[in-house]
């Protein structure tokens, strides 16, 4: 045996893994500090929580900077054996997630004090879930993506139920966990079928193998790869482009070297057709799994219960960051599968149907809600539907191959995600600021404008922006505008009509909150007392997110300009 065996040594570039390493490392440091700080002299629980909060915030800022640096030097080449691929879209998505996490950290001390939560665990879980989310935005391999989704989900389940004294929190965590695990099983079963159909779990390959395969195919011979050569650097993108997948058989091959027959143990690869049924089954199952995570109707049933039962800040983080991460992954997945010729027929229908049902169900469901957090949950289901219109645009045959347009749709999705995050930080932030009064019945908001005009204005800003079409010069308007414009351009008129109708319905419940705050004054007798925390933390977040909502409403291209393109 004189096989040309080369030891395969994976290469790890430190600068590429730094953003993830920072977050995971900081999470571990928080766990250690939480245990060790109690031994420090003169340490009180309040001071310990304060230190943990600062460490978390600073590490998040650090991760944000590394993502931004990554973005500026983005080369979109897969790294870590093709497990990740940090393109501009993924890096900016990670920045939006870190923004939500920072808002959480700044607002968290008063929540921890008020509900006596374990700070160390909460911050560590936040960092772990944040690491899972940021990794998911740049994931380039399906099983890596699955693990990222699990990292973020497992941390979020516990964050939903972190208040052990609250019976509702426990119930929320339970429901979130059961349906989340159910969704994960769909996801991984779908991944198995995508793997079965294409022979790879990578989204975008490194391309070298593909070139060689094609060369061998042209010569009409099976390609032989030496042992140890990674055959897995062909991605779903390349496989679907070729319409053919690699089938590998390891067998002894005889070669004539210097007039002698030498047996070399080699891997022989041939091409086989992609099985379209498995491909569709795989994609549909993965999409259904993601729909659960994104709380898209008809897979949304956990969202209202979890948002209501979880601590408000956890609900904010679940509503914003986890959706940004899952949408970023969905965008990368459909982008990798863009060569799939069956996309338009069945899958486009599936995606468009989910978008339609989500918009209708979310908006109609929100109308009948009396609890403010449940209203936000249904509102987020509807917003997920609007975003799914953009996904349906992305898989539309007309977009195929038109890279300018793909870039525009991706920018629209990113801008919408950013807008959605900023608006929801504001809405949940006000609810958390008002404490028990803001987290319950909407009628408890009556007379808020008279008592606290600034807070009422911030909430009104958020509601009008969430409404979207109707109030220009707010961020939500442009988010929807971009998404609808791209959808109309490719002719998805029916989806846009449903979206516009949903927008009209949404005016009813968003304006209802505004009316309660500004025009009604008869606070219900059972309204809990107001318990606004002192200090600058909440005003800082509320002012900052209000500024984002207004500023980017005036200058929507600023977001893309800040992004450098």
């Amino acid at each position, binding site marked *: 045996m004189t096989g040309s065996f080369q030891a395969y040594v994976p290469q790890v570039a430190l600068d590429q893994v730094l953003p993830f390493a920072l977050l995971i490392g900081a999470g571990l440091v928080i766990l250690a500090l939480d245990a060790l700080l109690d031994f420090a002299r003169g340490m009180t629980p309040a001071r310990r929580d304060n230190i943990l909060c600062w460490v978390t915030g600073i590490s998040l800022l650090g991760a944000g900077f590394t993502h931004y640096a990554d973005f500026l030097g983005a080369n979109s080449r897969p790294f870590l054996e093709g497990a990740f691929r940090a393109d501009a879209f993924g890096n900016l998505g990670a920045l939006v997630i870190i923004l939500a996490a920072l808002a959480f950290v700044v607002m968290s001390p008063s929540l921890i004090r008020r509900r006596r939560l374990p700070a160390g665990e909460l911050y560590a879980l936040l960092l772990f879930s944040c690491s899972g989310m940021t990794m998911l935005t740049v994931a380039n391999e399906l*099983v890596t993506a*699955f*693990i990222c989704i*699990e990292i973020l989900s*497992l941390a979020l*389940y*516990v964050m939903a*139920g972190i208040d*052990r004294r609250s*019976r*509702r929190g*426990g*119930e*929320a*965590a*339970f*429901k979130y*966990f*059961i349906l989340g*695990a*159910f969704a*994960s*099983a*769909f996801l*991984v*079963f779908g*991944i*198995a*079928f995508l*793997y*079965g159909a294409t*022979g790879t*779990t990578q989204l975008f390959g490194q391309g070298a193998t593909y070139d060689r395969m094609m060369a061998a195919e042209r010569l009409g011979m099976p390609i032989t790869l030496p042992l140890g050569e990674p*055959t*897995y650097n062909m991605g779903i993108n390349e496989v679907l482009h070729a319409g053919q*997948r*690699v*089938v*590998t*058989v*390891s067998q002894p091959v005889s070669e004539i070297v210097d007039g002698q027959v030498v047996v070399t143990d080699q891997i022989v690869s041939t091409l*086989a057709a992609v099985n379209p049924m498995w491909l569709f089954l795989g994609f549909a199952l993965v999409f259904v799994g993601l729909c659960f995570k994104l709380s898209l109707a008809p897979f949304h049933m956990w969202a*209202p*219960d979890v948002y*209501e*039962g979880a601590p408000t800040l956890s609900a904010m983080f679940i509503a914003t960051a986890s959706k940004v991460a899952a949408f970023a992954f969905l965008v990368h997945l459909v982008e990798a599968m863009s060569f799939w010729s069956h996309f338009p027929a069945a899958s486009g229908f599936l995606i468009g149907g989910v978008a339609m049902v989500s918009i209708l169900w979310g908006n109609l469901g929100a109308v*009948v*809600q*009396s*609890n403010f957090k*449940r209203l936000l949950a249904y509102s987020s289901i509807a917003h997920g539907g609007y975003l799914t219109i953009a996904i349906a645009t992305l898989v539309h045959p007309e977009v195929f191959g038109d890279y300018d347009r793909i870039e525009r749709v991706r920018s629209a999705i990113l801008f919408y995600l950013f807008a959605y995050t900023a608006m929801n930080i504001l809405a949940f932030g006000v609810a958390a600021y008002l404490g028990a009064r803001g987290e319950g019945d909407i009628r408890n908001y009556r007379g808020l404008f008279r008592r606290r005009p600034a807070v009422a204005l911030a909430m009104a800003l958020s509601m009008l922006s969430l409404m979207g079409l109707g109030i220009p010069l707010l961020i939500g308007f442009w988010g929807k505008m971009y998404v609808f414009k791209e959808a109309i351009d490719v002719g998805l008129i029916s989806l846009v009509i449903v979206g516009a109708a949903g927008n009209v319905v949404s005016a009813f419940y968003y304006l209802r909150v505004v009316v309660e705050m500004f025009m009604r004054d008869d606070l219900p007798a059972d309204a809990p007392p107001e318990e606004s925390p002192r200090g600058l933390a909440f005003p800082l977040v509320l002012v900052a997110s209000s500024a984002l909502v207004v500023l980017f409403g005036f200058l929507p291209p600023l977001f893309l300009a800040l992004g450098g393109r």
Partner: protein
Amino acid sequence: MDPTFLYTLILSATLFTIGVIGVLWKRNAIALFMNVELMLNAANLAFVAFSREFGLMQGAPLVLFVMTVAAAEAGVGLAIFIALFRSRRHIRADELDLLRG
């Protein structure tokens, strides 16, 4: 196509379906979770079947990742169940109705 491969796939799909039906029908939290585990293992079986049929090596190791994730999920899930049991003395999913709009 190798018949063994086809049988394995059919078995995997059957296990997955049993899991889905179980999650939708069962009421006890532990039983629900067992069905989720069944679905994950059905996926594992599919991974191995595809991996073997096409002579691709990386399918089999993926199973290890899924199993690890399943173990982590069990850890977190059972902790949530215990916390819930402490406050209510039962973990029947259909009797958790504090949150309903």
